[in-house]
């Protein structure tokens, strides 16, 4: 097939696969079967099997519109932003700025100056740790984390605590995987400089009451960083309403490309924080010995930026908006309720995390009696089911829960109840093979 013909088909797909997803028969709810048609990965067999993708907490699949936006940028508008006067440079600058505006609107930040593009959540947290933490946290100050944090929201703070002689304190969870008010109040004190908390646990699925905790921390004079990697893809976030000081997330967990992430921070904080990385693009004037920095947000974006990543993230946000975050969240809650109901009735399963749907999202960790999680992940993979097994980059939490590893399923807008049924069939087969060597 000629290149032109291929392009034609590709564009045709992008045009016809618009996310028109509200099936009248289903009222105001998502029809995941229609949605799946927007995602090329579900159109073909993966490794010879129908794909049942239940690893959305690790990364999400991409709709045609995201793939097409990145392709179009690379093919028609690729230039180095902020540098040249030529058409492509101007166009790349425009698309990059538009993407920033799109993110600002999506999280309802006050100003685009408060949106800093990073590679991912990890880099965004490191930016805050090295720029804010290493300069504003002092000896004797306390940094309060929850025990449910991902390594990316622990290790940078260990570095800060070590360098600045600050103290790390952990808020522990109750037996249902929740943070109690008493625990929050006993750990966040007048000595607390910063609270770092995940919006939703990537292991237990607990959605923490971040707004209340931010309010309490502010009363005590502490700032709060919310790790939104598992938050923003699944629930509507209004950073002003939350009153978060820092909110960080990754594009690839919300249908966007890998390599693009976001740090939201209040403008007055970013103004006083020194640059994290320095070099090209973040300067105003440079002499032999000194330099002055570019205004926000460029001050924190050294070097050539990931424009195609930003363009892809903007397309992902458009896609999510076209469906509605409230409907996405409701769909995931429906799936979680269904999965919990089915799984709770299976005697060989142990489930972890809150049982109350009000306090959790679409991530379920579990173990199968007699089968190590890594064996289980390999076995269900033979049935085309993608799930995660291991410590989920949360070793302190796993140790706290006295677990070596667990299996984890995590939902997104394209998952169906049938996916859950197929998983359970596959678990049954694995269980009977491991019990008596028959399928």
């Amino acid at each position, binding site marked *: 097939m000629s290149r032109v013909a291929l392009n034609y088909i590709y564009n045709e797909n992008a045009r016809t696969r618009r996310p028109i997803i509200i099936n009248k028969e289903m009222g105001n709810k998502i029809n995941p079967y229609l949605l799946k048609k927007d995602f090329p990965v579900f159109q073909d067999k993966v490794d010879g099997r129908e794909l049942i993708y239940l690893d959305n907490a690790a990364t999400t699949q991409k709709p045609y519109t995201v793939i097409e936006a990145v392709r179009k940028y690379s093919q028609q508008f690729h230039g180095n932003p902020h540098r040249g006067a030529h058409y492509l440079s101007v166009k790349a600058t425009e698309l990059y700025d538009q993407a920033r505006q799109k993110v600002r609107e999506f999280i309802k930040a006050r100003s685009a100056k408060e949106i800093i593009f990073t590679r991912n959540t990890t880099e965004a947290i490191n930016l805050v740790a090295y720029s804010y933490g290493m300069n504003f946290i002092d000896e004797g100050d306390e940094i309060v984390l929850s025990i449910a944090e991902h390594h990316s929201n622990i290790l940078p703070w260990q570095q800060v605590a070590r360098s600045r002689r600050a103290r790390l304190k952990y808020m522990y969870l109750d037996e249902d995987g929740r943070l109690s008010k008493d625990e929050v109040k006993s750990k966040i004190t007048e000595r607390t400089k910063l609270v770092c908390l995940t919006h939703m646990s990537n292991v237990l699925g607990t959605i923490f009451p971040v707004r209340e905790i931010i309010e309490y921390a502010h009363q005590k004079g502490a700032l709060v960083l919310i790790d939104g990697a598992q938050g923003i893809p699944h629930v509507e976030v209004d950073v002003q309403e939350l009153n978060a000081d820092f909110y960080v997330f990754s594009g690839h967990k919300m249908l966007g490309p890998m390599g693009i992430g976001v740090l939201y921070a209040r403008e007055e904080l970013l103004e006083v924080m020194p640059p994290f990385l320095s070099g090209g693009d973040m300067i105003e004037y440079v002499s032999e010995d000194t330099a002055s920095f570019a205004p926000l947000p460029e001050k924190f974006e050294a070097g050539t930026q990931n424009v195609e990543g930003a363009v892809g993230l903007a397309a992902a946000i458009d896609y999510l908006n076209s469906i509605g975050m409230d409907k996405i969240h409701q769909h995931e809650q429906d799936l979680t309720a269904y999965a919990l109901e089915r799984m709770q009735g299976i005697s060989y399963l142990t489930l972890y995390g809150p049982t109350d749907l009000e306090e959790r999202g679409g991530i379920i960790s579990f173990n199968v009696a007699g089968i190590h999680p890594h*064996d289980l992940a390999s076995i269900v993979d033979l049935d085309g089911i993608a799930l995660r097994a291991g410590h989920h980059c949360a070793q302190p939490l796993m140790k706290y829960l006295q677990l070596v590893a667990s299996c984890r399923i995590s939902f997104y807008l394209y998952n169906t109840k049938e996916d859950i049924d197929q998983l359970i069939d596959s678990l049954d087969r694995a269980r009977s093979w491991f019990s008596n060597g028959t399928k």
Partner: protein
Amino acid sequence: MELSSIYTELIMEHSRSSRNRRLLEEKDREERGHNPNCGDDITLQIKFAGGKIDDLAFTGSGCAISQASTSIMIDLIKGKGKEEALELIDIFLRLIKGDGLTEEEEEKLGEAVVLKNISYMPARVKCAVLAWHTLKELIKS
């Protein structure tokens, strides 16, 4: 691939077997092997006699592949001389790497050949080779 071609009866049997899972009453050395990413964690204990591996046993926990591979290895290696043991380890590691083995080499591995299909599962290779790398350290140390 089929479930039965990876989790073969032999692998299932060895993963559950307690024959080689014990502490030695007398040991010359021990070595711990650990896959931090997945939590497989075994400790091998060894006793030499007259230049041969007189006794070998393990304790620890992990997935069926890591546990079966350890047990199968112990059956194969016990009673062998150090040099022969190192040669068998080398052959096994090449098997899992997906290198083609000669018929003679496959024969030398005996039951351990049953782990061959792991070479098609890159995510599980480290489970299959953990005990063998640990033993290599143990013999060489």
